[in-house]
């Protein structure tokens, strides 16, 4: 795994951890199956060791440009979707302030349970 990929995966892990902790977030997408699949972070690594947590995509247009983070969340029904989405955006932006200044965070609410 390249250093860049390792850096990206570390960012993704941070994002996933921080987002999942936000009140009102049930879990991250894609599917319910991933909720029970324990291999997201602890399972055997894919070829090349690349593995991003479910529901999180971290990318970068160029080697020196700002990071782009895409988070897909499933919210709890008794929470306002917009409130939770904003909280996730703010939490992720805050957590990455040091490692990825100027990060662009997109949050999509995929479902509610």
């Amino acid at each position, binding site marked *: 795994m390249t250093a860049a990929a390792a850096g990206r995966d570390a960012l993704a892990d941070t994002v996933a951890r921080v987002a999942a902790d936000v009140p009102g977030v049930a879990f991250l997408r894609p*599917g*319910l*199956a991933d909720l029970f699949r324990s291999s997201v972070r602890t399972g055997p690594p894919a070829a090349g060791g690349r593995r991003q947590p479910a529901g999180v995509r971290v990318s970068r247009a160029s080697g020196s440009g700002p990071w782009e983070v895409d988070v897909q969340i499933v919210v709890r029904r008794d929470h*306002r*979707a*917009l*409130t939770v*989405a*904003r909280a996730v*955006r703010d939490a992720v932006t805050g957590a990455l302030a040091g490692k990825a200044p100027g990060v*662009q*965070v*997109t*949050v*999509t*609410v*995929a*479902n*509610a349970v």
Partner: protein
Amino acid sequence: MAMNTGAELPGPGTGTGGAEEPSDDERLACGRLLSEVWEAREDGADDDPHLRECPYCSAAVRQLDLLGAAVREAGAGREPEWDAGALTERVMDVVRLELRPGRPLPLGEREEDLWVREAMAAKALRAAAETVPGVRAGSCRIRPAESGGSPARGPVRVRLEVVVPLTPPLRDLAERIRQRVHGAADEALGLPVADVDVHITDVTDPAGAEEAQGPRGARDTQGAQAPQGVESARGVQAAQDAEEGNQP
């Protein structure tokens, strides 16, 4: 039995008249086609006296009846214990891996980068519509109200189809639904909504809906007028659409 040989009498082509029949059909000794005799039996059109009096035809009919009896007997008590619940779970396991979340719709202000999937928003808005007693929500499509920008951040237009109990004036009912949907879009989601178009696609007998009794009980006796009521409901909707400039 002497006469259960209707099917074993002279085969096709040797019957009377030389009329053609398909090779898998059979002409009974009396000249009737087996397929026609059986069809008459099935359709209950066996008031033809020949069918009753002819030994060949009666034998053929009896064969068919015996088969029917055997089928019914074999079928009696046949139900294995179906675990439809387990099958449903297995189906839904696959379905949940292949969801169709739909397009992303804007949440919050224009300058924010927050989204909600159409399918999820539609679920919330349908649920809101169904808080109005007796209302059942169907199609719910949510589209940007303005063109340009992809994906757009501007307010959306909601098109909702509902089935409602026949409680004139339907315009008021549609308005209640509209308000509930607007409210949920804001309170439950944070989805900016420009318009909510409510299309009443059908009406139900209000006595069938789970509602409080009282005046509606009297309407039961007018059940026979329901079709007329449907027409007037559609008329109301058409008038409503025209008045409010709803898109077709």
